[in-house]
């Protein structure tokens, strides 16, 4: 064969440049049938027998779809396709099931809470409000501030302590690590009411302090700490040892190597740790009820007097039992949900790695 030089020019990407995603007609037809037939049979059964939706979902829809999935796999790929088809059905069904559950929880909160939601509901407090007062006045502003204050005080303790614990567990070879890790695991299994009872009996019953926001914060600390410490530990452990060694080989003392190389590399994981810690305690009700009295007015002093929090507010207003008070409780639940959502979104943006930002700027 004669040797020759090829001149290469770039050509446009063809329409189908991913041959591995090509599906034959058999795959397409059997997939559609797997979805359509069980759904149709399910709908007809519900229509004619008046069967319960959930019961029908598991006794009619799921078995039928499993059968169809197995058949579709066999029809498309032969024997090896059977397990493939079955697993695909199970995976999709369960994911969809969980997604529907989550969506229905979110939907019911949004639906029931929306009635109470209005601008004044966010910033007003509850001083002139009883269970029967109409939704035109009163709000959860005081409870939002109370939640921020109590969780904030807990964070002041748990974030530095949790990260320090994670550093101890990952950066040292001390013999005490096993004990600390066991303790953390035990702490993360601690029922929140026990934490509340502990503060209640040690500090309040003994007369050392009255009910106050600070007591609530103290009761949240043991709940938040293990989450922060363990997630931070995992993220620090994921930082390659090469990086730390590189810093040490340049003559860095280990504390500088940690603060300038390891910690920035674990930044998004650390932020996640703090977030999960907040998420763990922001909705806690039991420790709050045991250590704080619910105030109707705004109280910014955590050392003295009652202070409202969103979970405490929800608990109280559900108990009052009037339609408007229940609507208020749903509204507060919706506010809590939005609050957590904003927090998560903000933290995700703040912790997105620097390199990604620079890339997109180019």
């Amino acid at each position: 064969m004669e040797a020759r030089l090829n001149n290469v020019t770039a050509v446009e990407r063809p329409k189908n440049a991913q041959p591995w995603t090509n599906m034959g007609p058999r795959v397409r037809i059997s997939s559609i049938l797997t979805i359509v037939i069980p759904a149709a049979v399910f709908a007809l059964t519900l229509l004619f027998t008046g069967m319960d939706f959930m019961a029908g979902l598991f006794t009619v829809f799921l078995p039928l779809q499993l059968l169809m999935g197995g058949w579709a796999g066999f029809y498309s790929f032969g024997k090896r396709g059977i397990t493939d088809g079955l697993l695909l059905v199970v995976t999709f069904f369960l994911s969809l099931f969980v997604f529907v559950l989550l969506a229905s929880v979110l939907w019911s909160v949004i639906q029931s809470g929306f009635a109470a939601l209005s601008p004044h509901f966010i910033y007003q407090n509850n001083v002139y409000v009883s269970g029967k007062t109409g939704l035109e006045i009163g709000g959860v502003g005081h409870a939002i501030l109370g939640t921020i204050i109590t969780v904030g005080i807990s964070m002041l303790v748990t974030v530095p302590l949790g990260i320090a614990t994670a550093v101890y567990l990952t950066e040292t070879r001390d013999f005490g690590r096993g004990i600390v890790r066991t303790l953390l695991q035990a702490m993360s299994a601690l029922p929140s009411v026990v934490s509340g009872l502990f503060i209640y009996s040690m500090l309040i019953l003994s007369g050392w302090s009255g009910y106050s926001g600070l007591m609530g914060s103290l009761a949240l600390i043991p709940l938040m700490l293990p989450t922060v410490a363990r997630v931070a530990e995992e993220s620090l452990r994921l930082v390659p040892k090469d990086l730390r060694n590189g810093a040490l080989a340049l003559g860095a003392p280990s504390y500088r190597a940690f603060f300038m190389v390891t910690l920035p590399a674990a930044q998004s994981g650390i932020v996640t740790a703090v977030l999960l810690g907040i998420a763990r305690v922001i909705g806690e009700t039991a420790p709050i009820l045991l250590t704080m009295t619910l105030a109707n007015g705004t109280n910014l002093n955590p050392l003295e007097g009652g202070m409202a929090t969103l979970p405490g507010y929800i608990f109280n207003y559900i108990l009052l039992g009037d339609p408007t008070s229940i609507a208020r409780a749903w509204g507060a639940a919706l506010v809590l949900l939005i609050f957590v959502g904003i927090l998560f979104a903000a933290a995700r943006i703040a912790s997105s790695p620097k390199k990604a930002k620079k890339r997109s700027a180019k």
Partner: protein
Amino acid sequence: MANFHLETKDVNVWFGARHVLSNVNLQFPQNEVTALIGPSGCGKSTFIRTLNRMHELIPGAGFAGEVLLDGQDIYGQAVDPVDVRVKIGMVFQKPNPFPTMSIKENVISGLKLSGISRPDAGDLVEQSLMRASMWNEVKDRLNDPAISLSGGQQQRLCIARSLAMNPNVLLMDEPCSALDPGSTRRIEETILELKESMTIVIVTHNMQQAQRISDSTAFFLAEDNTPGHVVEFGKTEQIFYGPIDPRTNEYVNGRFG
């Protein structure tokens, strides 16, 4: 006092109870490149890590012997390992630029990491990248993230990062094993330029590389569960063209290892 810049005396290393290096006595003269060769698992990398006290960071590590830098034992009671690592820089097998820093920040990271502030940091960046022969490639993108560089550029960035600390000795643990021939050649050229101003010790699996760049060569070997040791140490030409030990002869000619 010895005439050698860096010298080891009866270096022994253990991991747990396992003896992995036995009585290594090597001398590294000023402004020379010394290559450490030998099959995998013979303790070359372990040995090179004892030279700047990175060895002790491994859990269960044990050490006996002396490592003399300008006649001073770096394992002495009063010696801070941090000072040792400033004087004796190290480049690792896998490029490990700091991913959260830009190219420029990586070069001067050593200063920041050891808490030194210098007003001429900008000049130092240029100078160090020049010495690592990559200034022209990156001068227009100094603020880009270091991990946007290719593997070979990342490794030269790591060399530049070590050079910015102005070390007396540079240790290189298979610096080219993950790189293409072009990058390898550039790093070898860099090494030959650098030896004018420092002492270099390099671990390599590439026999041609050892012959191209080194003045002396030490052949390490660990036979049948015995600790690793130096079989032969001498001028590079002698090791490759007139080895005294038959095992060295077999290894450099590719018959085992």
